[in-house]
């Protein structure tokens, strides 16, 4: 049997360490899992993306920060101290022998599967602000918590509109909340928690709006206030920040990438991941409080001008019309969304670009899902690597097998594929189409 030198077979992915257990996310659930594994005598790596690259914060990743963190977040060393102080369990984990990597994001999870047989074993892609690397693992514990749900209310794209998780991180994790006076949206425990934390920190509360109502966030270049309807009359309040504490959802991007089954379970927040061999999901990433956003979403999405996808400027009306992006200046099919048959969010994404932007769909994924699920619950939109938008230069720093580079080819390296197809294929004793030479393959 011959081998195909340009295929992935036989190529290696150099690892920077191997661990019995890696834990992604150093919140309470992650620290508990890491400690338990270390106490059982395992080699454990615990990674957490905080302190975040301020560039990611500016893109509302992983939470809706709304530009309301002050310049303190630029000081990485100080932020690292704050995070250790805010999470006392980290010190205990380190003492127990857990290797802790802060400021390290998990951008890819790669398992051997029927579609990726050439991989030697499970790998996790990690990155800091300078470079990317891989570690090997036997078992992974995903403790990536929950993500803010954005309801596309009028004015939500103004700086100063935050999510509950973003607000909590700004206030308690980073100590860098830049606002003075907030309005809180949402009627559940989440909103009550935001209000209580704000009061404890001496932050003014301009309004607490518990139920979905006609509402607009006001401001010229950033949030200046909020107006909402109550008992038939419009009320107004001045504030510099609006905290959308309507709902959160399990942050299941890594389990999805790893191939865990994903199930729709509104009692646990919406889409939830299931465990699979070698992959455990703990804490909020496995399920959050029952879904509380439906009424808010329905009201917001009824407005055709609602900005659903801010990165790609896709309005609710554009989605319903299945309108191509504005730069094409074209209309969608006459039937709109109905032209597609059973709706799939990934397909709608590719046609309208909703969810295709630099925030990787974090801010619109739940709203688009609600919109395309009017008749039946659409399947969840896929997550793809890199799970954080990493600069080319950071990914480019990943160590590469010299054999992969030496045998690189643009497309399969079959010599006859690139010769005129109106002429017969030259005879080759072994490879029917002939192999490109290593030199020729490089084109």
């Amino acid at each position, binding site marked *: 049997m011959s*081998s195909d030198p340009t295929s992935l077979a036989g190529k290696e992915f150099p690892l920077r360490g191997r661990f019995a257990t890696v834990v992604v996310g150093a919140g309470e659930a992650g620290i508990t899992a890491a400690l338990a594994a270390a106490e059982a005598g395992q080699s454990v790596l615990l990674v957490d993306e905080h302190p975040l690259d301020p560039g990611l914060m500016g893109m509302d990743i992983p939470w809706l920060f709304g530009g309301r963190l002050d310049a303190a977040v630029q000081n990485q060393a100080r932020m690292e101290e704050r995070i250790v102080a805010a999470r006392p369990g980290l010190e205990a984990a380190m003492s127990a022998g857990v290797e802790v990597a802060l400021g390290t994001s998990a951008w890819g999870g790669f398992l051997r599967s029927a579609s990726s047989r050439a991989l030697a074993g499970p790998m996790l892609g990690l990155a800091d602000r300078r470079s990317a690397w891989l570690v090997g693992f036997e078992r992974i514990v995903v403790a990536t918590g929950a993500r803010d749900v954005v309801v596309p209310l009028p004015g939500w794209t103004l700086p100063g509109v935050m999510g509950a998780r973003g607000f909590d991180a700004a206030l308690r994790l980073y100590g860098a909340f830049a606002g003075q006076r907030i309005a809180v949206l949402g009627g559940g425990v989440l909103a009550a928690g935001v209000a209580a934390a704000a009061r404890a920190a001496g932050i003014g509360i301009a309004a607490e709006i518990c139920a979905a109502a006609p509402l607009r966030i006001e401001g010229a270049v950033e949030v200046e206030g909020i107006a909402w309807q109550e008992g038939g009359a419009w009320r107004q309040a001045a504030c510099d920040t609006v905290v959308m504490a309507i709902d959160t959802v399990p942050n299941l991007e890594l389990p999805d990438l790893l191939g865990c089954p994903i199930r729709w379970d509104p009692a646990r927040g919406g889409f939830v991941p299931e465990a699979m061999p070698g992959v455990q999901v703990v804490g909020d990433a496995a399920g959050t409080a029952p879904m509380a956003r439906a009424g808010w979403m329905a009201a917001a999405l009824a407005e055709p001008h609602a900005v659903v996808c801010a990165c790609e400027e896709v309005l609710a009306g554009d989605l319903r019309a299945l309108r191509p992006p504005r730069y094409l200046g074209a209309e969608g099919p006459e039937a709109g969304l109905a032209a597609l048959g059973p709706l799939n969010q990934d*397909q709608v994404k590719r046609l309208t670009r909703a969810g295709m932007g*630099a925030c990787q769909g974090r801010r619109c994924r739940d709203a688009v899902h609600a919109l395309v699920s009017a008749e039946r619950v659409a399947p969840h939109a896929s997550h793809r690597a890199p799970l954080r*938008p990493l*600069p080319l230069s950071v990914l*480019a720093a990943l160590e590469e097998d010299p054999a992969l580079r030496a045998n690189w080819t643009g497309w399969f390296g079959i010599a006859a594929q690139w010769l005129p197809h109106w002429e017969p294929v030259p005879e080759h004793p072994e490879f029917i189409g002939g192999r490109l030479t290593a030199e020729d393959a490089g084109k």
Partner: protein
Amino acid sequence: MIVIVGGGVTGLSTAFWLSRQGHPVTVVEKGILGWEASGRNGGGCTHPYSPLFREEQRLWPMMDEMLGHPTEWRPFRIKVALDEGQLDRLWKSTRLATDQGFAAEALDRAQLRELCPWVGPAAIGGIFWRYGGHANPQRTSQAYAWAVERQGGRILQHTTVTGLRLAGGRAVAVETSAGEIGCDAVVLAAGPHTAQLAERFGHRIPVAPARAEIMVTEPLPLLAHGGIDGNGLYGRQTLRGNLAYGGGPHEWLDLDGDATPRAVNTPVVASLARRLAEMFPGAAHARVIRSWGGIIENTPDGRPILDRLTDPDNVVVATMSSVGFGLSPASGRAIAQLVAQGACDFADLSQLKAARFGNLPLDWRARQGWEALPL
């Protein structure tokens, strides 16, 4: 009724041309239209080694109007070389087109940097192809489908073809998960599944499935000509401004019964980023926001099979051997002619018959090193 098995770009284009001429067509797709490699490739429309090249070049400028929906097609390609070897090889492939009367010009580093500010001092020069182009794969696949429906054709998604019913040397019905569809002719354009389906009526169409990967960055300011690539990568700047590039190692796979294997990514994505940053150091700050995979099929010699069989004599087999998107306007028209008139009148398809693999050893995949690794 002409039944087209496979709602990829080749089958959809075939249905477009047939329904345009008034033939009744039904496209049967096991999943979502254009969902596999058809909707997620590099978008290139430049294939000078194909007998369909001239027709490809003639048709693309007309496709938006004919289809009634934008394909995002844009003309021209720019090739970048980082060393003399790359430049020599670029000229070799350029001559395939210039020998057919198409024009190309050498670019020095300064001219290259004027066309693309991200190229660095490592670029020694390039070539401007006054031919070829690029388009949006998903939008194009969907545009064919909507045009088919507008022309009276029928499209069935989420419907799996299980076999053909033959009688008197002809296919008389296509058997599907939703029942039988009576037919006068069949086009088998099922990508990696073509071999499996052909085997069920006794024909050997040798193709091997493989997985390939692409990555894409956040949008950058628009270049005047987005079809720029090199350094072992194929790809383009999309009309939105994203840099979408693929290349590098593929992986040979097996089908998962009637299902197409999952198109997962591997750390090869980082190698794509590395080569893009080498070619465009001025864009190395751009953030990679997504990657994806695609499952394609190759014949043993990497060339298409476009062939009307003799028994059953009303079945056309069509696989483009991993290079189907860009050629689709022309391949669909050629296949439509094979169906309707038995031969293609605008291109020489004589070398693309299935019979060339008549003596193919049974273990051809193993001999070529194209077998899926054991799981």
